[in-house]
């Protein structure tokens, strides 16, 4: 039986029902009161039978899902669209010329700017003939599996708020991140691994740190878990020095007996039972997570495919292989950061564009292409949605009087998606002829989020969490439709 405390985390009954009901909106139970009765009978957690009936237990989607998992390759700092995937031939000829163009970025609003021509040559690839710059020779060969959205825009051209927007849909801090929403809506398939995993850059986290994988007003159980690609993968996962697994098992047996004796005198308390269970889960996680990150059984051709044998690409290759392994093991949402810390440790090319983008593209191009190839050859790409992009793009004009650095551009930038029921070899939307602003079919970040949720079986306009008197949604109270053009 469930007390309100047992049922859901001490939330008020109504909030708890709304929360539990989030994944069940598809049942069409629109009337709140009828839900009250319905969910009270279902023990509040939406899972009939079986263990564990925790908040992360698998939940039925709103509609059949195209994608079971999502890998979000986050190019923190903001890659330049006109130097990567958004081909603007006219820009080359304007290099160095000062033109009238209204821009807004870190340096404020300007009405004129000196054009920095694209620093790399673009070539057409694949059957679709999409133009990709020489920064991405490997990814270029995958264009027939990729859908480019050239007309993305966001609400802020400043890292702090833009990062929050790309991750949580809001420029104000405090909302749950995309990965939290996915796990809240669907639960996790593998209870022995976290359902929302984040891998950070070697140089450090992005600005605002944990806010970028935080569960905001949702319980902490939905927040992202930072996974380290080697050593102890999850905080406090490794046994303390000197303790053997067998010894720990012996300790846990005593603990369980102690707790069971305590529970026996307190019949019917599901919280106490759940806590006993949580130690067994933790014990299994200790065995499973290291296995998940152990690349020893990856064959040579896979290591070479990803570039694990090259010092330059080794780090991102390891993370991409890990992402695939986590998908194979039922992890729902995996975010991999390219770039961390500040300045040129990430894609934030304010100074020397060539130096910055050569570094970050060179570190990641082969592993990213390998990830797509590998997922595809394993038949996993159909059920895994891969997203590539940063919190915004970069302007076609220079930021300073001298040099090639570009300021931030949230008015128009490119993101790409592949797999998980996304059409390959297409592009959607366009920026103006200089690549600054989305002019054809502009899509807000929330449309990207809506698309990901939609592909994962969740209706973006129905997935809600009751907080502060409102049914909060990732896509905001006004809602947002998925980008239909992308969906196969």
């Amino acid at each position: 039986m469930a007390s309100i405390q047992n049922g859901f985390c001490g939330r008020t009954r109504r909030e708890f029902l709304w929360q539990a009901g989030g994944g069940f909106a598809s049942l069409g139970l629109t009337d709140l009161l009828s839900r009250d009765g319905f969910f009270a009978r279902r023990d509040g957690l939406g899972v009939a039978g079986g263990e564990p009936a925790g908040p992360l237990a698998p939940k039925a989607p709103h509609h059949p899902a195209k994608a079971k998992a999502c890998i979000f390759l986050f190019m923190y700092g903001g890659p330049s669209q006109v130097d990567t995937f958004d081909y603007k031939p006219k820009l080359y000829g304007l290099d160095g010329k000062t033109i009238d163009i209204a821009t807004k970025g870190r340096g404020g609003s300007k009405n004129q700017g000196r054009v920095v021509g694209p620093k790399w040559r673009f070539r057409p690839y694949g059957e679709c003939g999409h133009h990709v710059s020489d920064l991405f020779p490997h990814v270029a060969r995958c264009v027939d599996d990729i859908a480019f959205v050239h007309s993305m825009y966001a609400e802020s051209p400043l890292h702090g708020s833009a990062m929050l927007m790309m991750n949580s849909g809001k420029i104000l801090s405090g909302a749950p991140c995309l990965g939290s929403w996915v796990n809240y809506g669907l639960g996790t398939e593998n209870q022995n691994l976290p359902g929302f995993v984040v891998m950070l850059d070697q140089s450090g986290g992005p600005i605002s740190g944990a806010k970028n994988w935080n569960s905001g007003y949702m319980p902490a159980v939905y927040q992202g878990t930072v996974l380290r690609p080697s050593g102890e993968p999850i905080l406090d996962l490794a046994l303390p020095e000197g303790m053997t697994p067998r010894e720990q098992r012996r300790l846990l047996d005593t603990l369980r007996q102690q707790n069971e004796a305590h529970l026996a005198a307190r019949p019917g308390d599901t919280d106490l039972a759940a806590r006993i269970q949580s130690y067994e889960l933790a014990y299994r996680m200790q065995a499973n997570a290291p296995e998940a990150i152990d690349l020893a059984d990856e064959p040579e051709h896979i290591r070479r495919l990803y570039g694990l044998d090259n010092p330059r690409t080794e780090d991102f290759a390891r993370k991409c292989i890990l992402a695939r392994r986590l998908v194979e093991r039922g992890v729902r949402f995996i975010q991999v950061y390219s770039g961390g810390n500040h300045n040129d440790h990430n894609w934030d090319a304010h100074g020397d564009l060539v130096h910055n983008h050569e570094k970050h593209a060179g570190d990641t191009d082969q592993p990213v292409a390998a990830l797509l190839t590998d997922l595809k050859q394993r038949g996993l790409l159909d059920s895994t949605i891969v997203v590539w992009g940063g919190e915004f793009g970069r302007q076609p004009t220079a930021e300073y009087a001298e040099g090639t650095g570009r300021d931030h551009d949230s008015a128009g930038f490119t993101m790409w998606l592949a797999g998980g029921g996304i059409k390959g070899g297409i592009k959607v939307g366009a920026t103006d002829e200089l690549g600054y602003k989305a002019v054809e079919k502009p899509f807000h970040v929330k449309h990207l989020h809506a698309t990901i949720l939609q592909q994962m079986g969740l209706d973006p306009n129905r997935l809600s969490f009751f907080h502060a008197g409102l049914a909060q949604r990732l896509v905001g109270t006004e809602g947002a439709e998925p980008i239909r053009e992308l969906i196969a």
Partner: protein
Amino acid sequence: MLPTLPIPSIVRAAAAAAALLAAAAAQHGAAPAGGADWWAYRPLQRPEVPAVRAAGWVRNPVDAFVLAGLERRGLTPAREADRHALLRRVTYDLTGLPPTADEIAAFVADVSPDAYEMVVDRLLASPQHGVKWAQHWLDCVRYAETDGYERDRKKPFIWRYRDWVVDAFNADLPYGEFLHKQLAGDELPDPKVADLVATGVHRLGIWDDEPTDREQHRYDDLDGVADTAARTMLALSLGCARCHDHKKDPLSQAEYHSFLGFFENLRPQEQNARAVPVDGARERFERDLADYTAARDDATKALRVAATAAWDAMDDGGRIAAAKRALADVVASYPGERGSASRLIDEVAGQDGRNSGQVVQVPGVFGQALRFDGDDHVTVPRVVSGSFSITFFVRSEWRGGGSGNDTRWFTGTGLVDGEVPGIVRDFGVAWHSDGRVVAGTGDPETFVASGPGHHDGQWHHVAFTRDQQTGRIALYVDGVLSGDATGNKKPLEATSELTIARMHPGGRGFVGDLDEIAFHDRALAAAEVAALAHQLPGGVVAAPVIAELPAFAQLRALRRPDIETVEVLAVQEHGGDGPEAYVRLRGNVHSKGPKVSLAFPALAGGGAPAEVVPTQHSSGRRTALAQWITRPDHVLTWRVAANRVFQHHFGRGIVRSSSDFGRLGDQPTHPELLDWLATELLARGQSLKALHRLLVTSATYRMASTHDDKAAAVDPQNDGLWRFDRRRLTAEEIRDSILATTGELNLERGGPSVYPPMPKEVLATASRPDEAWGDSPPAQAARRSLYVHVKRSLAEPLLAGFDRADTDASCPVRFATVQPTQALTMLNGDFAQLQAQRFAARLLQQAQGLDAQVRLGLELVTQRPARADDAQRLLALASDLRRDHGRDDAQALQRVCLVLLNANEFVYLD
């Protein structure tokens, strides 16, 4: 013995409550009747205490209300909890800590009929009580010590607000006063430092110092402030009406913006901490200032006698020569009486100034002076750059902007200023906080500042001198040196013009009068400045006459007194006139809708325009709001307060949604009890401690947390309170209890927050791992969790894992999740490992032999006598570890301790 709280008899309380409600109704006119169709908006009335059948169970009226409900449903209350469980429960609930062995022994042995009540009084008098209850309040008001976002800057001195809340609960500040001081402590007639600190509540929100839309972000911040106040104090989901009328409650968008209007005159968050006089310092300062002025006037008198005698001894030729000498180094002089509406005349070399705005003339020290009212200024050529002196007279009653803890000249308001942003060779003289005069030169930034208190409506002479050879700068006010410093030795040519009565780059202007502004092309000596300041005959020519006099030595030895200050992060308003309030369509600050008058929400008995009385510095709006919220007949305030106290004793409020009493919230399970408690709070002098005592001494609170199949079938959620609900300890209680068990806990209170060791894996998630966290010495790291630094972008993993509140939004009810990562932290984490070691060390020290050590360990984590089967189990573990795992006694005991710290009985409260 500890003092007992004044508890009036029930009869007296009932009469007092009725009288208060009647008096309030008479004072404010008709009793507020908002949305009378919803329970929470109906007038607060004192309900009758119901009659019950099993009257013998009733200890106080709380029980009568609860029992009446149970009897209606055919249920009976659970038996009374045993003494160990009860002591453990009440000690945690009132102090957040487990009882000590001595406390347990004393209570179990005390057979007197009021033994429990004595414990309650002891706990309520403990300073740890405030530490526990402050956290509940801080959750509601979003207490955090950083801003969030990219830089996640520290909120300087915000911990004083946390300490204020602790102190307020410990001192049992009447609840109305508790609210009023937070809402508007700065608008009190003669605010104490603590009253200003209390307004720190409005500075707790997230704040992006680099917002994409500054004005919108300011409104987002104000929304957070207003919405937090409405939810926390009134359980009103006000924020839901920001973009449209409330979907369920009768709360319109206009009412939202009207409510926001009470806060709209607040200066934005980006303002830093400021120094304010400590209590009593102003009085001390005024006494010291009178002594100083008298001594200065005495010395000046002697100088004047000597200078006058010397002047009188000269013939006309000598006087003309002296005047020429006096003027020889003056390169520009603006006496004030010459000029037009647009020009200010330079008498020396025609380097005239341009007036902007309405500069008017008023009688000055000599002839006419220039009067500035904040939006006018004069631009003059920068006629000096090497060695120079700038001299003038100033008179103002304006306190000045900026903060006394940051007296860089360019954070003030320009008097004669040439500031250029950045590290450049510039200089200026400015008017600063609390009537200070400040000056400085750039590259490197070098400053001199006077003491405060020159905003007295009297003329004061100012001289700022700079010697290029030595780089020395000096500031004199009234002929007395305020300070000197050594700056650069280069020409100061960053700008070609200077601005009078405003900072050179812009901003608000100076309010006051200036006269006899003059520029000299050398650094005047101290005696020359004194001669000018005191208008001695002959001006600077009198300097040699006075320089050797004892009176001049006395004058030089004088120092203007300063005010002792303390730095606080509090609020300030823009001035007495607040801006008009408008509806902002869809919550967008740039979409102005209709104007709204300041009024309180009609559903809670408001509706009519609020009566607002502005003061000189503040609009008075928040005072009006505070007065309305703390009305004794307010339909929400007292219910909300009583419900929160109930919530944290019983694990849930009478209304479970303790910050939403509207239609989207929960209905009260015991509406009459809630009203009775609310009126009781009023009748007992708004004493929260009296309410605590009432609740925890009730038979209802003393029930065991036992299960009952029959009751569970009838009332599975325990809505009727047929037993006490077991609860998990909060994150802070878990950490504090571990430290208490191992004997490490440091109960010191107050002061800046501490930094317990942070796992390097967590630090690595920050964008600047090396700067993300601090390092406190071990004893400080073992302080109670309330004192652990709250950083928005970096959460302490143990506290975050056990559901510490997310501080970006108000959190009235915490989650209490159970997840495997908690188990990992408690089994493998550095903190758990270290504490298990210390726990074992304590047992080894305090008990002889493994058997006794295990028993003591059990008693320390459960606060009850050890049971044989529990001890056997742990001894068997120790024995196996020695036999099968090669552990010695100490290692085995350490692992037993780890098991104990992980036991359910340790982290759950019956």
